[in-house]
């Protein structure tokens, strides 16, 4: 339990990666790292399929990332109707890619592929949590 707190609408309550939520509550965005091969995972994985191992540790995603691509969404699936429009984005933090939304404060015409972004936690109504990208 615990993962149902993630995002505007959550579809999964149980995962062995739910510590992600505890770190998010503390203000940190964390991925995982395999303690055998050193591979870093974001989104965090509880398991390494290269090593057949469950021995992973949590590492923080911080610093400055680069915007790979984005789209401003004007039509949304059920449960997100009140949110539109919003901008979905894929951001590269030195080879670790993070998918999410840009801050609502950023107008679309100020957004450019290649721009520098940081990722930060965001509290949502009803005790839910997510993260968003802001200009770095």
């Amino acid at each position, binding site marked *: 339990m615990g993962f149902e707190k993630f995002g505007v*609408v959550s579809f*999964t309550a149980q995962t062995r990666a739910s510590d992600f939520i505890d770190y998010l509550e503390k203000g940190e965005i964390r991925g995982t790292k395999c303690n055998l091969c050193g591979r870093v995972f*974001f989104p965090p994985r509880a398991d390494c399929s290269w090593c057949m191992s469950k021995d992973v540790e949590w590492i923080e995603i911080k610093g400055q990332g680069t915007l790979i*691509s984005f789209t401003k969404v004007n039509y949304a699936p059920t449960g997100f109707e009140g949110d539109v429009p919003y901008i*979905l984005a894929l951001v590269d933090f030195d080879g670790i890619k993070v998918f999410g939304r840009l801050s609502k404060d950023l107008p679309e015409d100020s957004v450019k592929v290649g721009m520098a972004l940081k990722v930060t936690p965001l509290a949502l109504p009803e005790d839910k949590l997510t993260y968003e990208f802001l200009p770095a």
Partner: protein
Amino acid sequence: MPKDVAIIGVGQSYFVRGYQGSIRELAFDAYSEAMKDAGIGPEDVGASMICTAPEYDKQRSPSGLIAEYLGLNPQPTFAIETVCSASTSGLKVAYSMIKSGLHDIVVVLGFQKMSEITSADSQERMGRGADIMWESPFGTMMPAYYALHARAHFNTYGSSEKDLALIRVKAAKYGQLNERAVFRKGVEFDQVINADAIASPLKKFDCCANADGSSCMILASADKAKEICKKPVWVMGVGSASAPMTMTGRDSLAGLNAAKEAAKTAYEMAGVSPQDIDVAEVHDCFTIAELMAYENLGFAEPGKGNELIQNGETYLGGKIPVNVDGGLLSKGHPIGATGGSQVRTIVLQLRDEAGDIQVPGAEIGLVHNIGGVGIYGNVVILGR
């Protein structure tokens, strides 16, 4: 070229909004046409593959019901699901069953009655066609994912919304000739460019329409095909591949790796190269998908796909005619039926039965059918 397995019959329903019948009847529309085309009866069939995206079906386990309705008991039947590429996945399984000697004739039936569920239910399902843990909670849907690929393609290669609009204009031109297409109106360049954005940079006319429809392919062993079929169309190459479902797992968004991998396998198996293809059907669920297909299939170098459409090379009479049946953009996209409809178009081309859209003397054709946003890729090469 390999001549082990042939397509001996094809059929397709009209693709429509709101089919006025049940899924069993929708399936029968394509099946009866294909069976008559092949000149066989249910007793000749060894097995059936039922291809569908089951989240649209109210009927649980529809293969059982449909096999019964089509008169295909007691032969084995089962469902095949790779979302939008289900029916070419079915073709691959049927090919394998025949090549291995398990069966002589296999029916591959694809269908989708997208109107079976309400549009609210459909909207709800749309959000779950991605990683439901890490992407769906942000409010994702298919147009947004292809939009991310479009922006990445523009930025990597200098392509633009104008190139995408040219692709839609072509689709609309040929859609008007296809009486089984759901969208049969002409579309002007300015209309495409000025339409409302769905997920920027993709706008209304960059997206294909939902539709209800069915398709059917009948595959046979070489011996059977030669015995009963005047114009067998040979399955020369079948390639299929997968790619990460998540955007974070992909090396690049400027192409679809599953399509590239599938194409490589299919070309190798068929012993042909992209230059040998006379006519192609590619999975243009969105205009950007067709542009990426030009490059992923090797019709153009990476980043040069837009030159093909700018120069009219993918029109009839061009270097490589693509989607001259109107494509998904005009025909509509009844998920489980789409691949079979693409194969039917190529089979008719290779039999010289394509009418107004016939590519003169077409000998080798290609089908590119993609499941989800490039999660599954199937490429089929057919020859006469």
